[in-house]
């Protein structure tokens, strides 16, 4: 703090405290802020490639499209930092998109109860994932893979393979619409506000509370954390619940602009893990940051947009995603080894 007010640090130590303030900020971002630089560069390239130049409107629509992934990444991060995986989130997103259409069937008065029901569903899935992982001792990879099969099979079974119904307009607003008549940018998408609110909540929860510190401790070394008095099972289960709830929010955002289909959320689990890894999270636990994970998600979507502008076939996306996650992790482990 003192580094920010020069008057309070008049002596030789001043530059030192200044760097320590910077270092503290750097550390609170998770120490792997290079993704922020990459994000800015990619966004600049996207702006230059856009035939109408770098318009703010365009960036906001990009933010809208990236919102579900950003929210998923923020939730997945809790599980990754705790040293586990959550492969079930893609199927939860599908369940939300299909469920909100079938349950409301276009009736706006049902929107709120259905959203409540879906949130309860996310919490229950997270609880089950967490309890099976911690109490039954089943590796989370298997638990959440099994959950993925159960939920996606359940959705197919429920809708007999062809989801019917329609998503209510007021539910669609969140992912699709925005605040009108905002100066400069004309329209501020609700999705941007959701990213900000959820991101801030996740940031505070993971980086500024006792619970968050315990998530890091448990993921870094579960035994040491247990000896230090943390309840490993409770902490991990709570992390799964956070991930489940984030998947519900992401699903509601996706329902706003995505189509109604039985594979709406397919592949989102791996994209979310990729986003966190781009943001410096380490599989195995103990490391990661909300801000850089969300930045990782935005970067991934921005890169996909860039590929569109370059008129590359859509299929190249996955190859690029594969290449950059390997490169990012290889770079991170190289940095770690060389100090």
């Amino acid at each position, binding site marked *: 703090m003192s580094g920010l007010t020069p008057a309070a640090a008049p002596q030789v130590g001043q530059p030192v405290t200044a760097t320590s303030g910077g270092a503290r900020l750097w550390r609170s971002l998770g120490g792997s802020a290079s993704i922020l630089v990459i994000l800015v560069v990619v966004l600049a390239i996207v702006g230059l490639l856009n035939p109408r130049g770098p318009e703010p409107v365009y960036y906001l629509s990009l933010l809208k499209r990236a919102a579900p992934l950003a929210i998923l990444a923020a939730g997945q991060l809790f599980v990754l930092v705790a040293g586990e*995986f959550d492969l079930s989130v893609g199927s939860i997103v599908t369940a939300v998109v299909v469920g909100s259409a079938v349950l409301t069937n276009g009736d706006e008065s049902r929107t709120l109860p259905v959203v409540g029901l879906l949130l309860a569903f996310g919490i229950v899935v997270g609880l089950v994932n967490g309890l*099976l992982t911690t109490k*039954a*001792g*089943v*590796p989370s*990879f*298997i*638990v959440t*893979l*099994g*959950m*993925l*099969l*159960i939920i*996606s*099979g*359940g959705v*197919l*079974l429920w809708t*007999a*393979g062809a989801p019917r119904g329609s998503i209510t307009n007021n539910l669609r607003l969140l992912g699709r619409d925005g605040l009108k008549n905002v100066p400069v940018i004309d329209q501020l998408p609700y999705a941007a506000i959701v990213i900000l609110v959820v991101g801030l909540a996740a940031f505070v929860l993971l980086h500024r509370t006792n619970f968050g510190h315990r998530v890091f401790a448990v993921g870094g070394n579960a035994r040491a954390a247990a000896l230090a008095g943390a309840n490993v099972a409770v902490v991990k289960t709570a992390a799964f619940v956070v991930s489940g709830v984030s998947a519900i929010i992401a699903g509601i955002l996706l329902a706003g602009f995505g189509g109604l289909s039985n594979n709406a959320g397919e592949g989102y689990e*791996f994209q979310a*893990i*990729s986003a966190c*890894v781009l943001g410096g999270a*380490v*599989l*195995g636990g103990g490391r990661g940051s909300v801000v850089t994970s969300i930045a990782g998600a935005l970067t991934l979507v921005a890169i996909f947009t860039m590929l569109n502008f370059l008129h590359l*076939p859509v*299929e*190249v*996306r*996955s*190859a*690029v*995603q*594969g*290449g950059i*996650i*390997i490169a990012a*992790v*290889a770079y991170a*482990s*190289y940095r770690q*080894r060389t100090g």
Partner: protein
Amino acid sequence: MSAATTSPGRAGLPARMVRGIAAAPAAPVYLVLVILFLISWVAVGIVGSGQFLTVQNVTSILVRSVALGVVAAGQTIVIIAGSLDLSVAYLVSVTAVMASFIMQGEADRMVLATGVVLFIGVVVGLVNGLIITKLRVNAFIATLGVGLILRGILNASFNNFAGRVPPEYQALGYDGLGPIPYSVVLLVVVVAATWYLLRYTRFGHHLYAVGGSQEVSRLSGVRSDRVVITAHILCSVAAVLTGIFLVSRLRAGAPWVGTDGAYDLESIAAVVLGGTALAGGKGGVLGTLAGVLILAVLDNAFNGLQINAFAKDVIRGVILIAAVALYVARARRAPAR
């Protein structure tokens, strides 16, 4: 357990294999398989079509197991080494498409096509292994990334059936030695070879050591990097063999062959169902075979009972979690604490 390990050698190979099964941590998997088989037999007999324990149906269960069984044998090797391979599904697709594309229906290109896809398999396995060991990238990310790269290249180059498989090549998929299909022979050979490799070779023992603790095995003089790389090459070759079998069943290869079968996650599920620990260092291929057969028997029983196909995934998910929970519970009870 000690009786089985202290008196090897005398008994014949089949007897040793049976004893191996009994001593394996996966012994209950075979019990589950037998029980499931009996239940299916009775259920299909009473409620369903009544056609379960027929030569035709049992053969169909076995053939259905070949594709998953071969790739799962490879997956067992990498998982025992403490790694895993998420790229196999795309490699299966690449193999199917490339083999069919190279052959173009010409029987005299069969050897060339097989050679090329095996070479691709070795290269992909080598790349996976090198990224994991030399660049120190977590296996999950490394093989996910390589899989995505394969998928991108594949989908950008092919979007439909490519080439044609000559009738001679289809023999692998449809013909056999008398009543035994060649494909089942392929599965038995791959599983037996993997079993021998894991149990009786230096490489096999190194695999368990590296999977148990990479650091300890390295300090004990095992070149752990080489072991992991070799494991990945073997796993990729197994995926290629699955691709070859699948394309021999089709008239042409298509880029969705591997992903439709979800061979990445299914093979990991089969391995874990067979009692191999996902953390590495523990397990065996005979358990994996049982895991694959359990999934195939379930599939078959569902068809015989004409149960909604969508329920299949739900039940698979439940069985997967329940089985592993059971193993963990047993393992916790067994050793003196």
